[in-house]
Structure formats: structure tokens, C-alpha cells
């Protein structure tokens, strides 16, 4: 699809300004791209490479490390059902089976209407609340198949938009970091004094 929009380019430049080296902003900018299109487009990677001064191949190399960056279109809601020990013991397999039947897709697939992508996930660190899942990385705990049906109904009817924004949205609330609070444009090799908060206790 597309390169970053003008508004996102402005934001990208602000983000780049927070780091001593432009390429440090790579991952935040990839999030921005994913937020824009729901997944990371080829053109967006080219654009980000131009913005931070690295080749598209380097952007791709970094981006593909992260499971949560998608390179193909995914549904508006990405449902990750945990399948690790606690959840498995508490019925995540039945949950997955139910979800597959209900949505008519296999794990890894996307519904034809582009609403749901179903994924199998490893431990989501909510073992006490097993079985759990995430919708666009927002938790749902101790689910029964009936809970799952209700969740899917709500999502299909867009009744949870206040809580669960479309896939890719990093946060509902944007943080603004004033330039004086950023890391600053000083490259590490140029730093000669230890940070003030160390109070002179440690030398660099």
C-alpha cells in the first residue's frame, strides 16, 4: 500500500529527533507504519529507510525479527489464543477449536471480511488467569467457549472500540515527549561526563 502520510512523516521526524542516531527510531517508526495500514507495507519500509538513512534491506532485517510486525494484511482484530502450559491445561485447545469453527478459519488465517485474524500464541504471562487470549494485544481472561462467542459478537458489532482499537494502533493516548526530555542529539561517543543522577558515583 502506502508510504507514511504527511502527518505521520511529521511525527516520524519528531520521533527521530529524540535519538542521537536516526536509525535508533526504526522500531517506533515501524509501529507508526503498522498503525497507519494495519500491517507494514513494502513502501512504508522503503520510506522509513529513507527517513532514518538505512537501506530498505536493513529496515526489513530489523522488522522481521518482531513477531508482532505483520507484513501481510491482517484482520481488524488479531486474536491470539495462548497455548502454553497453564492455558493448555485449562482448555485452550478447545477454545482454539471453537474459535476456528466459529470464524471458519484455521489458526494463522484471516476471515474473508477482514475482521478477524486468528493466531496461536505462546505464553502471554497470564497463567493465573488461564485460559487467556489477546485481541490486538488487549487481554481477555478465563474464557469459556461461550465467552469467546460473546467476545466475537461484540467485536463484530464494533461494540468494544473504546477498549480495543484496530490492529496496529499502538496506544489510544499518544505520548508527547518534549524535545528537552528526549535522549538528546548527543551520540554516546561524545558523552564525556557521567549522568547527573549518578551524582558522580560512577565514572564512565
Amino acid at each position: 500500500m502506502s508510504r507514511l502520510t504527511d502527518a505521520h512523516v511529521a511525527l516520524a521526524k519528531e520521533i527521530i529527533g529524540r535519538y542521537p542516531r536516526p536509525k535508533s527510531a526504526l522500531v517506533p517508526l515501524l509501529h507508526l507504519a503498522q498503525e497507519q495500514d494495519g500491517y507494514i507495507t513494502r513502501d512504508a519500509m522503503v520510506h522509513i529507510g529513507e527517513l532514518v538513512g538505512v537501506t530498505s534491506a536493513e529496515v526489513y532485517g530489523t522488522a522481521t525479527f518482531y513477531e508482532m510486525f505483520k507484513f501481510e494484511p491482517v484482520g481488524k482484530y488479531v486474536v491470539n489464543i495462548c497455548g502454553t502450559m497453564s492455558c493448555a491445561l485449562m482448555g485452550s485447545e478447545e477454545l482454539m477449536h471453537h474459535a476456528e469453527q466459529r470464524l471458519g478459519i484455521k489458526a494463522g488465517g484471516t476471515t474473508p471480511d477482514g475482521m478477524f485474524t486468528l493466531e496461536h500464541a505462546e505464553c502471554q504471562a497470564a497463567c493465573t488467569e488461564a485460559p487467556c487470549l489477546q485481541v490486538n494485544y488487549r487481554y481477555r481472561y478465563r474464557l469459556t467457549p461461550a465467552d469467546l462467542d460473546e467476545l466475537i459478537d461484540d467485536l463484530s458489532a464494533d461494540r468494544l472500540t473504546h477498549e480495543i482499537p484496530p490492529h496496529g494502533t499502538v496506544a489510544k493516548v499518544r505520548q508527547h515527549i518534549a524535545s528537552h526530555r528526549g535522549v538528546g542529539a548527543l551520540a554516546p561517543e561524545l558523552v564525556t561526563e557521567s549522568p547527573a543522577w549518578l551524582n558522580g558515583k560512577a565514572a564512565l
Partner: protein
Amino acid sequence: MSTTESHNEAEIVIDPNAVSMTINGKSVTARKGEWIIAAADRTEDFIPRFCYHPRMESVGMCRQCLVEVEGPRGPMMVVSCMTPVAEGQVVRTDTDTVKRAQEGMIELLLANHPLDCPVCDKGGECPLQDQAFSHGPGESRYVEEKRHYEKPIPISGLVFLDRERCILCDRCTRFADEVAGDPLITFTHRGNNTQVLTFPDEPFASYFSGNTVQICPVGALTAEPYRFKARPWDLQQQESTCTTCSVGCRTVVQSSRDEILRYQGVDSDPVNWGWLCDRGRFNFQSTNSPNRLSTPLIKTESGLVATSWTVALDETARVLRHAQPGSIAILGGARGTNEDAWAWAQLADALGVDMRDAQLDDGLPAEIFGYPNATIDDACSATTVILLAPDLKEELPVLYLRLRGAAEKKKIRIIEITTHDSGLTRYAWKSLQCEPGHQAETVQQMLSTPEMQEQLGRGSVVVVAGRSNLAEAAHHTMAVVDTIATTVSQVSVLPVLRRANVRGALSLGLAPRDSTDAATILEASANGKVDCLILLGADPLSDVPDADLARRGIAGARHIIAIDTFLNNSSAHADIVLPAAAYGEKDGTTTNLEGRVTNVAQSITPHATSRPDWMIAVELAALLNHDLGILTLQDIQTRITQTVGGFDGLSVSVAVRKNGVLVSVPPISPLQVHHDAAVKRNAYEFRLVVARKLYDQAIGTAMSQSLAALAPGAGVFVNPHDLERVGAKDGSSVRVSNTTRSVILPVHASMTVARGTAFVPFNQKGVDIRELLQTSNGVTDVQIANIS
């Protein structure tokens, strides 16, 4: 006895950087900061390795080079490619623990590596195969299904990637990033599926991609021109020197069944550090081309027809015998060996030929060698390097690698004076953009700023000087080189004339006499003053920037004798064409741009009836009753060392050595440099920059099937703002015109081109930009009009 001992002790020089250590009980002297593996490489104890490469940064990726080092808590395992030597260090590479570790690593690497050695091109010269035998466990406990990927996938037109074979050593990706500066391949999908890939659907379009194939320690990367052509044990090899350009990279030429199949780079410390560019590496295909000239050709009413050497040489001798005194001219010679150039110069002397030039008006005058000379190493260790040269990445790629590396490591500061962004612009300390014809102003300004004065005063300065713009007369560059050479102290010049042996040919007797250079000769020819024009591997119709002059010169010559490997634009007009032996088909020596003489070796028999240039000269001399006293190549080499200043003391056995030997060029008459005022613009908006790209229609590239398609094709590149002003779209056609002529070219926007200039690559398929060049004016101004 005791006297002798104390005498010896007095001679011992203590090197502050020396470190004494032991490897397997044997004492070794190493240099401070060196890695253990590098120190061990000077002993007989081989430490197995995959990722370590002496010309790249260590990454400790493969863990195969584990050794034991004595520590305070007993022996500990370290990676020898990332552990520096230390005084008193005790290293063991042969203990049971080390062996277990090495065997374990091999077993791990082979867990997913396919055992397809019998059908793998690397088999027989594969570090993984060899080290699996020498340092492996012999058996694997791994019985599961191996990892599978689609194999092999092309990552460029030249390189194929088989990810199943890859052991993730980071050599190719490190090379691309660190050495070539083209990080177009990288590790992707890091984790269990880590694999080397390019950006999707974007080729690994690096001019240096072939090196990744050479340094790949497995068969993951293979080069298209060599795939499935031979097995390593069937190859015969000769160490030689690449003669694609004048850098003179050391190579090994590998052949089988009398056919050249591959070049590999050889690490020559003062020159190429083991690297080659793709053009040099793969243009051996042209040697094997079916289009090579096989027999002499002679002009008849029905065009050029094949004839015998006897007839052709007799006829050539007849033409030369009947030529008016002073009406024979020789153009070329820079493509051959030193011996070829010298023999032809001898024949020229015998015939009283004054019109000779090894260049084709597309370089710089031979006087450039008159300045104190710098070597490549001098340039890479200078305090300041001033670039007044064409884009080295395009014309002399391995010199670009060396300078780029030196600038990246902050060893040198590059000041670039250029008309458009070059490959080195990113690495330059200062890049001063100037309009063609205004170099003098820019240099004057540069020399007058305190910052520059301070920088230039800090130490040695090397001026890298070459013809950066074919749309501009050479004297602009010469004038500024002269200005810098006379104003700056500690300055030396590295001339970057691009043809392989141009320096040798100019030094050995094919330099113009009394400023009668190629342009003057062609003008004389156009005026009917040349009875016989000898083209010694030269193609004026393709290479002389002034196309009109070349045409008139070729048309005006009464007879043309061409000695060449292919029938080219110019030799097609010849009366007699003599087929010449190509690179790899003859022995001899060549001189690189810094004056380093190295050998070129014969690997295969010359194609069909072709023979070396020197042999043709000697035979012609004999037919013309001039005994040159030469029967063999050795005779020539003896005579060169005896008679040519600078080459004395040179022997072929020295030149055969990897690093060759530097010759000093005989002094050339003092410079007569014109310091013209900057050329004012006419009403035309764009000043033209014409320069070569690595891949063009040069015969060696065009006749190499793997390279021919890489030439970008004709086009005009302008700044995006200018493109908008012209009102054209990227890729649409525009009319480019000077005061008398116009051509139609596709236009492209490029940020690398300065506003008000237009860049057109030279000698590309499609439109010949030379039609617009007006070098007699000093510069060329053109108009660009949108016609779509």
C-alpha cells in the same frame, strides 16, 4: 663466544607493540591488539573457522575457533577471533576440551546443513566440508528432518542464494555493509528462521557482489557465471593481475579444458586486499565469446573477409612501407601488456612514427605523472585526500573500496571536488560541489578558507586526479591539480587514468610526442595527413569524446590497420584487422595506476589464430627489414629493464610476486598548464556532465553475457527541482540540445545531480551523448525540453 653474544644482544630492538605468548607450548611473537587466531595463523597450528576473515571485523558468529586460554581459574574457552593476544598468554588449540567443542560446533552446523556436497559447487573447496573432515566428529546424532527453504533463489542477476546451506557466519552480510558499503543483504526473520535475504523483490545490486560468493564458507552463495561449470579439482590456476581497469587487482585465473571459468581475488596488501569488482570478476566471459576475431580480416569489395596471417601481415607491411614519412599514427596500446606496448613503441621508433597516443582524448595528459607520485597506500594513509576524479565507485571500484574503508575508519579525510554526488560523497569530510569549468574557482576558495588551510597543513595530502567529466576539457582538471600541487606542501598525486595499462603504455614509449595527442592525430587524419592509422586495441569511434572528430579522423585515414580481440565500431572500418590474444591468453607484465608492475599470466591458448600484440609488432618489423632483436617475451623484458628508466632493476621474477614492484616513471617534460578563466554560461540552462558507469557498452562488458544486461542504458539525470521546471515526468522523453544538435533521451530525477547540471552516463545503449559534446569550448551547455 661471549663477545659474539653481547654483540647480538646489542642488536635486539625492543618493539613496544610486541607481545610474547605461547600457542601449544611454542612461543609466538604477536602484535598488541591482534586476535589470537591471527597470531596462530603465523604458526603451524591451524584454528578452524568460518566467520573470521582477516580483512573484516571479527564477530564471533560461528564459534568454531574456540581455544583454551590459561586464566586465573584454570583454562577457559574463548573465541580466538575476538580475544586479543596478551603478554604471557598461554593458548592451547589441541586439548581434548577444544576438540570436543570444535566437534560439537561442526555437528551443530551440520544439523541443518544439507549433505548435498556431491552436487554442490563448493564441494572440493568448501571450508565446511574440509573442516568437517579435519575437525568434525565424523557422525551426527541428528536424525530429524532438516530445515527446508526454496533453493536456490537468485538475489541478483549474478548471485544465487541457497539458504539451506547457509551457516549464518555473517561474512557476506558483513562484507556488504562493512567493506562494500552496500548493505542490501541482511539477516532477516532472526530467531529459529534466521536467513540472509535482500529486501523483497529488490536485487543485491552491488558492484562487489561476487566477493560474497568468494568468501562464503559454504555453497550458500554461488555465482551465475560459474555455477555447475567445473569441479575445483579440475581447475588449473595461474596467479595474475586483473586488467579491466588500472587498479591492477591480483587475481587467480582458473581454467579447465582450455577455457577460463573463474577469477578469484588474491589478497595483495598494497592493492586490492583480496577484493574484486563484479565487472573484473565476471568479464572473463568475453574471452570465451564466440564473437572473438578468429582470423585476420582484409577489406575487399564485399567488405572484410577472412584471410591468412601471411597475407594480412604482408599487406600490412606493404601499407606501412608505402606510407609517406611521418604519416603513420598509432592509437591505443593501453589494453595490452608492458611488453606489447614496448614492442609497438620499438616498431614505431623504427618506422619514425611521431604520432602516437595510448589514450583516446578521454583521460588526462601524460604530464600528470610528472608530479610526485602517490601510491594507493599513500592515499589511504594520507592526512587529506583531495578527489578531483571521476566517481571511483563507477570507474575504479576497488580503489573506491580502499578509500572508503580508510575514510570510514577515520584514517583519512576526503575533500571531494565534484560536479555531482559520487560513491564517496557520503564518506567525504567535505564535498564541494562545483559546476563543470569552475573547478579553479572552487579550489581557490577552498585553499583560502582557514579551516581547509588548517586541514591541508596537518600532514600529507594526496590528490587523486582523473578525468571526471568527458563533456569538459581535460585542462580544467590539470589546472587545478597544478594549483594544488604548487600551493600545498607535502602533496603527491595519484593519477587515476582508467585503462588497465595506460601507465605502462605511456611510460614505455606510447606517450604523445610534442603534445601530438589523440585529438591532434585524429584532426591530422581528418585533414588527410595520415596514410596509415594503426588502432592498437583502440576504438576511437566509441571512446573519443568528440564523436565528430573521431568520425572525421577514421574517414580521413587512407589505411587503417586494427589489432583487436573483437571487431568493434572502428575496426569495422579497417583495411586489415589482425586478431589479438586476449587477457588470460598471454604472459607479460602490466603497470597499474600507481606504477606497480605485476605479471599477467597465460592460462589458456589464444583463441583460434590470435596472437599477442608484441608478436605482431616483431613480425611486422621483420617484414619491414627492421630487426628488433626480439624472439621471445623474455627478450623484451630484458630490453625493458636495460633501456627504460624506472624499469631498471625490475625482473619478471619480482613482478610475478603478489605485490609486484613499483617503478618510478621517467621524468616527463615540465607541465604547460593553461589556467583558463571559468567558462561563462551561454543561454543554455544545463551544464553537461558525462561520465562512465561501471557497466556500459565496453566490449569486455558487452561480450560477457552475465554483465551486458547490467548496463543502465542511456538517459539524462537532473535534479528533481529542475525536472519540475522542465515540466517533464520521471521516465518521460526530453530533447537535449546544444547549439547545433539534439538527441532524445529518457529523463530521470536524481538528488545526486546538482541543480543546473545534467548528468548523462557515457557509452550506454540507445543514444550516443557524444553527439552533443563540445569539448573545444571547454564545457558543454545544453537545453532540455519536454516533448511528451
